């Protein structure tokens, strides 16, 4: 093992160091200086992002070409960059960079959306921000993980941190969310682990790209491997929240503090999709596309249907966003359907589209959760639909951003969400899965109904008086510059990404 | 060194027994598969040895404990249980009955046979009874406990109540199997020796919790929970000390650890002096020894860590509801655990069964490591000693172990009890950081050692190590003496010390 390659994991190290600094800083500073903690956490995320970009740039300049999208697509020419580093435990490829970038973004935005919660002391402690950073570090490692060992351990770093984060507000609902998340999460990890044990037992290999390389063992213990892969898929679908295994999502998202919900809906989902992507593109690949892709397609269709139709009935916006998250998982799954006769370039394109979706989804969802997390003057959070009434009068900018996020989530043209959906539908059609893509478009149209209900509540619905005889009070919110930065930044990015969808791709070239 | 699996199934410890029994049964009953009988018996023999050991250990330790307690409290202690008036009583009575006019012939015959035995008991009285007065009290105790009524509370969880003492005893019992009593007398030398002992003794906490809960008594429950918390916490410093021992010896086998403390030179000649023992091998080990010893004390639930059975608060803790033999099980387990932890301390820190006198070791060594063993024709990896050497090693091991056990007893009758929070503070805030830094220190020492040895020569290094260790030893000794003898005392401390001295003077003047 070449230890100098450890520098490729420097971004993770930066985030970990920031986590430790935040935890220890809380012990030494006075209670009134606690506003510094989110700033340190934010700095950790930004520095991590900087380090990530620096890594990418130095790789590109050294090898005169950008790293491949995934390690299977690596050119074997002499002198070319081999993304498999550190004994094959990690793969430093563009997919990993992208997942790590989304994780850092999600971490930074969730820190921003939590930073105004001074009234809730559990949410302003050093451990809270430390755990966010640790979760982000886990997600980044998961993005780069290339064998089952590192994959499992990174997944657990992320999961354990988020279990506790989900319960960090000290009330009944938060506790319930944490417990449900813990029990079901542990259950799904057990599936994952069992699958890995089966596969390792059958093949004796751990590397994601090597386990299914045809061999005698693969034939002789095919049943064991199939069982293992099935368990593995169940575990991963659990983590991403796809349809037969989605039951935990609404309760957990509703109960968890809103900043954490944002992190779970975006960062955790991106990291789980990193596992799914590596399984789909490197482990199975086109060679086994016939065997498993129908399963993915079925899960995708089921997920889209369940998510969208259950979201229609929700009165609680946080819960509605949770179901919308399930629906978006379905759309994302479409992006991972591999055609049996795909080549490396096509796979890279598909992966690129999926990553674009993850990025766009992260921005608009975190923005929406940022708005939902705001506290009204009367102490209520903007969680129920009727709480949004009158927001356009009191905070026109805020209402505009929220409307943008809703339009984008629904997939309307000038916003990032439109291109994201367009790209994954396109890659599904290219791969030969037309029916799932058509169903995706149809459910996407149906989803307009519930997204636009929020917009109607903000712009059309009359403000109801809280007490009879009193003048109707609008939704006046307390919010600080961190929330402003989060909401307006995410709004701007949503529109920019919609206007220049090739922007991120352009940056990579 | 033998892997657990091998030992379990092949009876490695007593292969010769298998052979002997195979021959025996092979001649006698041909229709019985002799191997199966031999296998079972061979598997049972170590168990029986361990069972005998645990009784001897517990019995001997209780006697020593009573004597130490009596000595410290200026009492006489057990002195009535002499061979003649304990075992001899039944014979004396038989003789007396035979003298009666209506004695039956059988009684007369018995008296005739018993008459010479009375003389034997008289002789025993004059020897054993004089050197160790009241030694047989442990037999008397045992008989008493067996005869006592075995009470099970009506509201207790009966199966668990009955199972708990067995689990506690079994865990101590299992640990005895892996101790290195001597170079050739041992039950098993596992490849994971130290780790095996740590694992098997960790089961004790379950048994204690079980006892506390099944008794359905609030004092028992509190005691059980306190005990389990204590054992789980103090397992960490103990584990750190074990780990350091493994790092410094490069093996987990108990025999291997002992041999590693002989300091063999290239030609297979043992250094084998006291200062080759691990405790003097680096200053860190010297610091770690008291850390381990304190933690071991706490793991055995001994004073000053006997919070689980604090009689002023909890009646008797987790064994409040137990009587008779079940109570004796807890008692035996406690004494066995004391001996086990002290034996581990001896193995890791104090040279195991090494006598610490190099000329003797070199004299007793028949095959040196690196030479060809004439018995097997293979190159010996460990030294092989003559029978006298082995016996001396056995004595050395037992003496060292019981010296540490004696200190445990000394502490018990000298120091008051900790509070729960003090006990936890000592573990988590003092012992664990200290143990952890010692582990890091020893690892660093092991890293640096070869370079220093290369530069300045191995002899200089050994001398320097021994010098540093002795200096640390001396300094701490001076520190302790200063603390207790010459430190300027505050008025309060002066008063309490005066009281203590006066009390002792009064006690000395008292006649018992």
């Amino acid at each position, binding site marked *: 093992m070449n230890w100098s390659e450890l520098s490729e994991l420097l971004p993770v190290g930066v985030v970990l160091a920031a986590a430790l600094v935040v935890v220890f800083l809380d012990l030494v500073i006075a209670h009134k200086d606690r506003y510094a903690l989110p700033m340190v956490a934010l700095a950790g995320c930004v520095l991590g992002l900087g380090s990530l970009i620096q890594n990418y740039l130095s790789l590109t300049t050294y090898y005169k070409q950008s790293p491949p999208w995934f390690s299977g697509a690596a050119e074997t020419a002499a002198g070319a960059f081999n993304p498999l580093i550190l004994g094959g435990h990690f793969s430093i490829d563009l997919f990993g960079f992208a997942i790590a970038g989304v994780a850092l973004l999600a971490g930074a935005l969730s820190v921003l959306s939590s930073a105004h919660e001074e009234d809730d002391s559990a949410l302003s402690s050093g451990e809270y921000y430390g755990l966010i950073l640790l979760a982000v570090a886990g997600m980044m490692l998961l993005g780069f993980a290339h064998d089952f060992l590192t994959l499992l351990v990174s997944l657990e770093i992320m999961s354990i941190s988020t279990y506790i984060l989900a319960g960090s507000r000290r009330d009944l609902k938060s506790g319930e969310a944490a417990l449900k998340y813990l029990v079901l999460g542990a259950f799904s990890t057990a599936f994952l682990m069992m699958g890995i044990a089966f596969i390792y037992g059958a093949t004796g290999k751990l590397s994601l790209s090597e386990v299914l390389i045809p061999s005698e063992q693969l034939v002789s213990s095919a049943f064991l491997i199939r069982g293992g892969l099935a368990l593995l898929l169940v575990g991963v679908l659990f983590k991403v929240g796809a349809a037969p295994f989605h039951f935990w999502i609404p309760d957990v998202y509703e109960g968890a503090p809103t900043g954490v919900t944002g992190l779970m809906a975006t960062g955790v989902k991106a990291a789980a999709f990193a596992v799914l992507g590596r399984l789909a593109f490197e482990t199975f690949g086109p060679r086994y596309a016939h065997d498993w892709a129908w399963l993915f397609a079925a899960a995708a269709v089921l997920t889209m249907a369940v998510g969208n139709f259950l979201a229609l009935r929700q009165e609680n916006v946080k819960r509605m966003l949770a179901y919308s998250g399930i629906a978006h998982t379905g759309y994302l799954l479409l992006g991972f359907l591999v055609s049996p006769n795909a080549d490396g370039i096509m796979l890279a394109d598909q992966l690129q589209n999926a990553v674009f979706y993850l990025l766009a989804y992260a921005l608009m969802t975190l923005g929406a959760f940022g708005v939902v997390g705001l506290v009204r003057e009367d102490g209520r959070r903007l969680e129920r639909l009727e709480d949004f009434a009158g927001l356009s009068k009191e905070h026109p900018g805020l209402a505009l951003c929220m409307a943008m996020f809703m339009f984008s989530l629904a997939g309307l043209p000038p916003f990032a969400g439109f291109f994201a959906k367009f790209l994954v539908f396109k890659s599904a059609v290219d791969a030969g899965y037309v029916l799932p893509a058509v169903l995706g478009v149809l459910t996407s149209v149906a989803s307009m109904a519930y997204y636009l209900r929020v917009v109607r509540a903000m712009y059309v619905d009359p403000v109801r008086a809280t007490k009879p005889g009193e003048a109707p009070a609008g939704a006046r919110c307390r919010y600080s510059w961190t929330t402003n930065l989060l909401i307006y930044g995410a709004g701007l990015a949503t529109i920019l990404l919609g206007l220049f969808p090739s922007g991120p791709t352009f940056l990579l070239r | 060194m033998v892997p657990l699996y091998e030992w379990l*199934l092949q009876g490695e410890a007593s292969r010769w027994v298998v052979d002997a029994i195979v021959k025996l049964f092979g001649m006698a009953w041909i229709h019985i598969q002799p191997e199966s009988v031999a296998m079972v018996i061979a598997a049972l023999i170590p168990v029986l040895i361990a069972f005998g050991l645990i009784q001897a250990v517990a019995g001997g330790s209780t006697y020593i404990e009573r004597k130490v307690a009596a000595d410290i409290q200026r009492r006489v202690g057990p002195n009535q249980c002499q061979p003649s008036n304990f075992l001899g009583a039944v014979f004396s009575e038989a003789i007396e009955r035979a003298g009666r006019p209506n004695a039956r012939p059988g009684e007369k015959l018995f008296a005739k046979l018993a008459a010479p035995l009375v003389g034997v008991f008289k002789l025993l009285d004059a020897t054993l009874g004089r050197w160790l007065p009241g030694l047989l009290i442990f037999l008397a105790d045992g008989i008493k406990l067996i005869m006592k009524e075995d009470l099970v509370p009506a509201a207790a969880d009966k199966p668990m109540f009955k199972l708990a003492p067995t689990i506690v005893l079994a865990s101590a019992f299992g640990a005895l199997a892996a101790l290195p009593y001597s170079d050739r007398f041992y039950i098993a030398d596992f490849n994971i020796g130290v780790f095996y002992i740590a*694992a098997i003794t960790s089961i004790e906490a379950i048994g204690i919790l079980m006892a506390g809960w099944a008794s359905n008594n609030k004092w028992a429950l509190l005691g059980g929970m306190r005990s*389990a918390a204590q054992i789980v916490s103090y397992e960490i410093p103990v584990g750190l000390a074990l780990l350091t021992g493994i790092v410094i010896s490069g093996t987990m086998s108990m025999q291997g650890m002992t041999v590693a403390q002989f300091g063999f030179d290239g030609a297979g000649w043992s250094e084998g002096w006291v200062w080759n023992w691990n405790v003097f091998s680096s200053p860190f080990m010297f610091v770690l020894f008291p850390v381990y010893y304190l933690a071991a004390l706490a793991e055995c639930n001994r004073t000053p860590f006997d919070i689980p059975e604090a009689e002023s608060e909890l009646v008797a803790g987790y064994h409040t509801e137990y009587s008779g033999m079940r109570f004796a099980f807890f008692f035996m387990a406690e004494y066995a655990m004391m001996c086990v932890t002290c034996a581990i301390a001896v193995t890791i820190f104090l040279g195991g069964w090494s006598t610490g006198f190099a000329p003797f070791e070199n004299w007793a060594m028949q095959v040196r490591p690196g030479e060809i063993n004439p018995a097997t024709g293979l190159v010996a990896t460990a030294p092989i000693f003559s029978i006298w050497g082995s016996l001396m090693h056995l004595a050395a091991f037992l003496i060292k172990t019981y010296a540490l056990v004696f200190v445990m007893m000394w502490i018990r009758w000298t120091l008051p009890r900790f509070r729960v929070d003090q006990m936890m503070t000592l573990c988590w805030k003092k012992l664990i950081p200290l143990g952890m830094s010692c582990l890091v220190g020893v690892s660093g020492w092991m890293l640096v050692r070869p370079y220093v040895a290369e530069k300045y020569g191995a002899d200089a290094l050994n001398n320097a190590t021994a010098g540093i260790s002795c200096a640390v030893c001396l300094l701490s000794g001076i520190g302790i003496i200063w603390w207790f003898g010459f430190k300027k005392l505050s008025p309060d401390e002066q008063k309490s010390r005066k009281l203590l001295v006066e009390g002792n003077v009064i006690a000395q003047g008292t006649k018992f």
Partner: protein
Amino acid sequence: MVRAMHSMLATLLFWIVVLMTVTAATFVVVARNILHAAFALAVAFLGVAGIYIFLHADFLAAVQLIVYVGGIIVLVMFAIMFSAHTQEGTVEPRRTWLALGGGALVAGVVLAATIMLINRLQVPLAEANAHADAAYRTTASAAPGEIALGHVLLGEYLLPFEVASILILAALVGAVAIVRKETR
């Protein structure tokens, strides 16, 4: 002959251990008293440690005992005893026919799958066993498992090993976050 006896005794002992494990695990599920279930779980862990010994993984067996029996089960019992209603610590499972039937169905399917699996794998497993046994016989005295394990853990797999320490760090920070009382 003795060799054959050894393997017979080994088989006998193995089945005793397996039976103990499975019985205890079943008891964990059906026990009405939650503490009895915890104790049964300890026995099941003990049995698993025994199975590890049969797999020549002594070190793992010891770790299993120290971590699961000596640590986790004790903490589980602590949690049960410290929480309220210890005396009424029994659970009344709802035993509807649907649940029983569903459970039986799932168990049956898993059993059938496992039997199929074993039938499929018989040949490779036997070969693998023979191979492992032979390798073990030749190296048993020279390089016991735990030494090789140490080399692998601190060599080839050092990085995942260290990543696992980050996992423990996360758990530690999380534990502090849960128990920490806010002082205002």
